[in-house]
């Protein structure tokens, strides 16, 4: 296939085949015997807009449904989800973006499931948590009714159509329509018990998001009671006024992903949410790791000076942060001493969860964790899957994985 390069020059590359593209990842997996290690990817993606034809009919409200169905029809001039400018594909340099449509799959089975198996098998991943892509912007939609409708339809499609076709290899943390606390609770109560639902995801790209608002307490309680997770998934929003001085996508992207988690994590901790819901596992997703020591130090510092503003806290904010979970990607492997310090500060052995973020442009392979020189074997196994096994109750896929889970004290049964 030809791709357009500089000045309109055409460059030929092979059509996309995920297995072939990731052949070197498969080699790493074989060399490291990843089949003996339970590997759980807590953040992988699909492009749900490619399935909108199936998803949107699940919307409940007929008027809302009419709006989006007409917008998508031939000649329709509307758009379903808010979008933000950006160049994730780096001008075509990350070829799996422009070539995505060229990959062949079997028409009899959900394409996303087949593509998912290809990358999971290549990387040595046993299970992955399927997150959407465009829906990460749903919090920017000005209509909270539409946000609810889209989340509702997506959650129905994921649990009724998608997951049953993944041979149990994919699970989900479903989308909470966070602008609508009542709607969020309804989602938890309706879909919480369905197979493959490990928890709930709040997309943090929002103009205003008071995670501490009283309206959400019943939602958190409902999730905690079900023994499920609450994940905050970050993203970039170049259009946000905070990032409008960024004249390059790299700046808006590098800061944006960390920024939204910095903001909401700070509010979460300062308002004593960990004291209120001590058994609710909270995961901060796709913001990298470098921001965590920064926030820990900043809030600890001010907490000592202004304790009266956060009287619910019985310990230093960083101690609560050390008890929450973090997804590993995109891991900043730049200064090994700094990374080692970060791992120590977040108690990575017990709180860090491997994530690939595949197929997005800055994905991480399991070897990014496996090859770190300062980790113990226990930490390696815990981060790649042991901790996620306990959180999401995912069974080992072979005896060697089970023995490793037992060896490192993670096994909770099949």
């Amino acid at each position, binding site marked *: 296939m030809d791709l357009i390069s500089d000045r309109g020059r055409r*460059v030929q*590359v092979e*059509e996309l085949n995920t297995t072939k593209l990731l052949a070197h990842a498969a080699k790493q997996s074989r060399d490291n015997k990843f089949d003996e290690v339970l590997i759980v990817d807590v953040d992988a993606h699909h492009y749900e807009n490619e399935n909108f034809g199936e998803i949107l009919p699940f919307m409940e409200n007929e008027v809302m449904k009419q709006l989006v169905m007409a917008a998508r029809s031939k000649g329709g001039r509307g758009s379903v989800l808010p979008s933000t400018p950006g160049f994730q594909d780096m001008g075509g340099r990350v070829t799996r973006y422009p070539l995505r449509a060229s990959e062949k799959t079997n028409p009899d089975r959900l394409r996303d499931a087949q593509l998912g198996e290809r990358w999971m098998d290549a990387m040595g991943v046993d299970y992955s948590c399927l997150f959407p892509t465009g829906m990460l912007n749903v919090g920017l939609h000005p209509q909270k009714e539409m946000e609810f409708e889209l989340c509702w339809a997506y959650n129905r499609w994921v649990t009724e159509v998608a997951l049953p076709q993944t041979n149990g290899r994919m699970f989900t943390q479903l989308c909470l329509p966070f602008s609508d606390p009542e709607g969020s609770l309804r989602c938890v109560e309706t879909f919480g018990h369905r197979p493959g639902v490990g928890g709930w995801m709040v997309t943090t790209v929002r103009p205003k998001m008071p995670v501490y608002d009283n309206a959400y307490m019943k939602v958190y309680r409902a999730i905690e009671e079900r023994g499920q997770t609450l994940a905050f998934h970050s993203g970039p929003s170049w259009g946000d006024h905070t990032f409008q001085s960024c004249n390059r996508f790299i700046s808006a992207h590098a800061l944006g992903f960390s920024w939204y988690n910095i903001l909401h994590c700070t509010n979460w901790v300062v308002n004593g949410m960990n004291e209120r819901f001590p058994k609710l596992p909270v995961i901060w997703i796709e913001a990298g790791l470098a921001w965590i020591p920064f926030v820990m130090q900043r809030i600890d510092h001010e907490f000592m000076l202004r304790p009266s503003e956060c009287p619910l806290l019985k310990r230093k904010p960083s101690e609560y942060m050390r008890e929450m979970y973090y997804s590993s990607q995109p891991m900043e492997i730049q200064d090994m001493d700094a990374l080692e310090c970060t791992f120590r500060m977040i108690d990575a052995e017990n709180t860090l969860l491997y994530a690939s973020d595949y197929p997005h442009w800055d994905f991480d392979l399991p070897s990014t964790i496996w090859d770190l*020189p300062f980790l113990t074997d226990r930490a390696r196994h815990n981060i790649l899957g042991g901790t996620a096994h306990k959180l999401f109750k995912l069974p080992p896929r072979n005896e060697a994985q089970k023995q490793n889970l037992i060896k490192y004290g993670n096994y909770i049964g099949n």
Partner: protein
Amino acid sequence: MSSPKARAPKQTAKSATPKSAAKTAAKAPAKKTAVKKAAAKKVAAKKVAAKRRSNEPVALSGEDKVHFVKAIWEGVSKGGKDSGKASAKSAKTAKAKAPQVEILRRIPAAAPQNKKQNALSQKGLAFAAELEAAFAKGELEALSPEATQALMGAICKIYGANQESGNKYPILSGRMAVTGTDVMITCGGLLKAADLQVFELGMWQSWTGI
């Protein structure tokens, strides 16, 4: 779609001559230097492995870390110059038998765009080819000064107008087309003919960005 050539996987390149095949076999086992170089990294790896077994945090020396970072830079390439394990492995393989060259894939440049040339362009291409052929034979007077001036003037006008109107393309098809000296002499001649100084060119380029 890839061309059939691009999709031909796992071909084996056949040795061109029996002589080169013999040479391949003779030179293959030499890998000792790489193995030696990797010794330091092995020490670091052993330390890590020992600590891993005991489940204690690993205290690495500064040197160990340098080797690790080098290994990261080398990637998982088994051919990396500091990749001790890999080098040792390949050395063993090489002793057993000469490595085979397996062609994994061929990726051709883009399929040629059969862009239709209009009649004048076709004439231009043919004329340029004739001139190149005459020049190759050493015929420096193949084109009279008057003809050269007329052509150069016309090309200057049409190229300049295209650039200004936004239809940008490089003035030469590739870097190999002419020598640096040719470019210097021609640019100098053009500036002189138009009574322009080099600093004026620099200033104009700064202002316009063209």
